[in-house]
């Protein structure tokens, strides 16, 4: 009888162990069953596309095993969220089931602030940290470009189905309030043979501080002396005209609702909302449509001149790149150069994840309307990732 009892307790213990084990496992990898349980079977569509770079061949052997458990937290840029949350889930499903990278889109400004407050393992921002911001943090930091995208000129012209072409001077004129109607001669000169309607232009811009605004105004400052002297470039500027919308979503909504409106938004917002995008004239004199390829071309043009700390913009590429879209943008992941030894597990997991993200992860960029890194840049980013240390010891060999 006593044996019987003991056996029962033993069985109970086994059941308990299995249950708790299953529980903790499901916390770590509960994204995996998305396909198993769902009628929509999304997991099947998350299969790896033929990737340009095979991760396994380039992966440095870190101590991250498939069975290690780590929770990595990052926050910041809204622009990088669709891609970063996608690659985080795929990485967990295919590479390291125990590594949960939790990234939340609180905006670039919020990401920088939390990175400064050291409440996250990494930040993400649509613009690199300025010297002043880096000094404020007090410890050496790294700016790691991760993904590129285009700031698209989108507009609302009821009944007009053609493509509108914009020269930089025309965009500057519109945003300076000098060009106020779609039938303006400047627009007519950009669009020979196209009859634009007699309709007032409503200018839409971002009301919040934004990396998109930084890249857009940098482009205008580079190409228009009038813009440079009166408005200049910045995360938020003193707009001469127009209405503000919060986030790319706010600008998209403004443009959608207002006939005659024009705005600059992340390309994905225009594409997903079926809004038209304008062609923009680059330094070579070609009108270029914002696409993933034309953005990658802009990245490729900028990389040779990029400084070692990888703080560079990809706007207004030189005339030697005839197919590059001129208003490209990047999102950086912000890392500390040295992490405390107590964070070793998380940091190793994070660096291995980022390494995977700049190689295999790039092949998922197109699915969410972002542009992959230029191959030359990947090499430079590898060098930056290799400089990260934990307690003074390099994470990567």
């Amino acid at each position: 009888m006593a044996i019987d009892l003991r056996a029962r307790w033993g069985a109970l213990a086994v059941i308990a162990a299995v249950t708790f084990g299953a529980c903790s496992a499901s916390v770590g990898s509960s994204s995996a069953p998305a396909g198993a349980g769902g009628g929509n079977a999304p997991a099947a569509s998350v299969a790896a596309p033929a990737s340009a770079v095979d991760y396994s061949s380039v992966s440095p052997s870190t101590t991250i095993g498939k069975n290690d458990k780590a929770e990595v937290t990052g926050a910041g840029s809204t622009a990088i969220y669709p891609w970063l949350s996608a690659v985080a889930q795929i990485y967990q499903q295919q590479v390291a089931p125990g590594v949960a990278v939790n990234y939340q889109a609180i905006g670039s400004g919020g990401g920088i602030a939390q990175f400064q407050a050291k409440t996250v393992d990494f930040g993400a921002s649509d613009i690199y940290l300025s010297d002043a911001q880096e000094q404020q943090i007090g410890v050496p930091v790294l700016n790691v470009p991760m993904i590129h995208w285009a700031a698209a000129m989108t507009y609302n012209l009821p009944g007009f189905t053609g493509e509108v072409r914009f020269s930089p001077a025309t965009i500057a004129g519109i945003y300076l309030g000098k060009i106020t109607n779609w039938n303006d001669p400047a627009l007519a000169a950009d669009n020979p043979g196209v009859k634009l309607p007699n309709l007032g232009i409503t200018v839409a811009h971002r009301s919040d501080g934004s990396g998109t605004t930084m890249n857009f105004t940098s482009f205008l400052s580079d190409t228009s002396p009038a813009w440079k002297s009166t408005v200049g470039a910045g995360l938020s500027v003193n707009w001469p005209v127009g209405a503000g919308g919060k986030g790319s979503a706010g600008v998209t909504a403004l443009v959608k609702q207002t006939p005659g409106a024009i705005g600059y938004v992340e390309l994905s917002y225009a594409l997903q909302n079926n809004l038209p995008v304008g062609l923009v004239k680059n330094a070579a004199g070609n009108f270029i449509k914002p696409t993933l390829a034309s953005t990658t071309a802009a990245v490729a043009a900028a990389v040779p001149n990029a400084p070692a700390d990888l703080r560079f913009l990809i706007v207004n590429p030189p005339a030697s790149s005839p197919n590059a879209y001129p208003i490209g943008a990047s999102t950086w992941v912000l890392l500390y150069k040295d992490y405390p030894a107590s964070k070793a597990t998380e940091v190793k997991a994070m660096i291995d994840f980022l390494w995977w993200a700049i190689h295999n992860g790039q092949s998922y960029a197109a699915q969410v309307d972002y542009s992959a890194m230029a191959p030359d840049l990947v090499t430079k980013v590898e060098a930056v990732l290799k400089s990260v240390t934990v307690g003074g010891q390099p994470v990567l060999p």
Partner: protein
Amino acid sequence: MSADARTRLGDRRIRRRRAIDRLMRGLLWLAAAVAAIPLVLVLAFVLIQGLPAFNLALITQDPVPAGFPGGGVAPAVVGTLIMVGLGTLIGTPVAVLTGIYIREYAGGRGATGIRFLIDVLAGIPTIAVGLFAYGLVVVPMGTFSGLAGAVALAVIIIPTVARVTDEMLGLVSGSVREAAYALGIPPWKTIVRVTMPAAATGIVTGILLGVARIAGETAPLIFTALGNQRVTASLAEPMDALPLRIWVYASGPYDAWHQQAWAASLVLVLLVLTFSILTRFVLRRRAARLA
């Protein structure tokens, strides 16, 4: 003036008064209707927009990467339940005891002072409460967490419940208290066995209102709970919540996100509604038993 003329004059006056009465009643009815319209519209709109994406997968699955079909908001449902539950557990006892203190012990000037402070607390924008919890919990812990979110929500629920407890105890007739004292029952026992049971229904309704309010809070969770793509029960990790998920999805570019944001709103409304109906049901049974 003949009697006939007087009657006619009186008729006219009465008719005029009746007309004014009808007009005023009409205006009041209209005001009530205007107040109810947003509620009806919001519920109808959330239903219409939310139903297409509302299914079992929505509340049982993790979010899938953007651009992929399917997925759900399970981490947000679990996170909201945990944080609202914990926030209520932390905040309500403090609030009820505060209400009892104000009404039964503080005395005139003390009561006025504490009531004023509670009202000020109720008036603080919830995003500021979030920043308070950020400084109190997130920075010392070095990480965003469900605990920080629950603390923020607890601070928000305290003034609502404290004031309701205070008011409800005030409604209990003085003669009931006096009857208890006359029987030689000590004050604490009078509160526990006589006044509190009499005020319980009102206090629970107040708690319910508080729970419904914190369940819909977004601002205080942004810098405390942060959000999470995975289900977690650990209070030391970032945690998701329905309002946060709705906020992120509604401002994103993808149509699938917008649909899930609507469906998640429907889930949130249903959660609050179910909870409030359940509580009312329990209260009614309890009231029936007492009677």
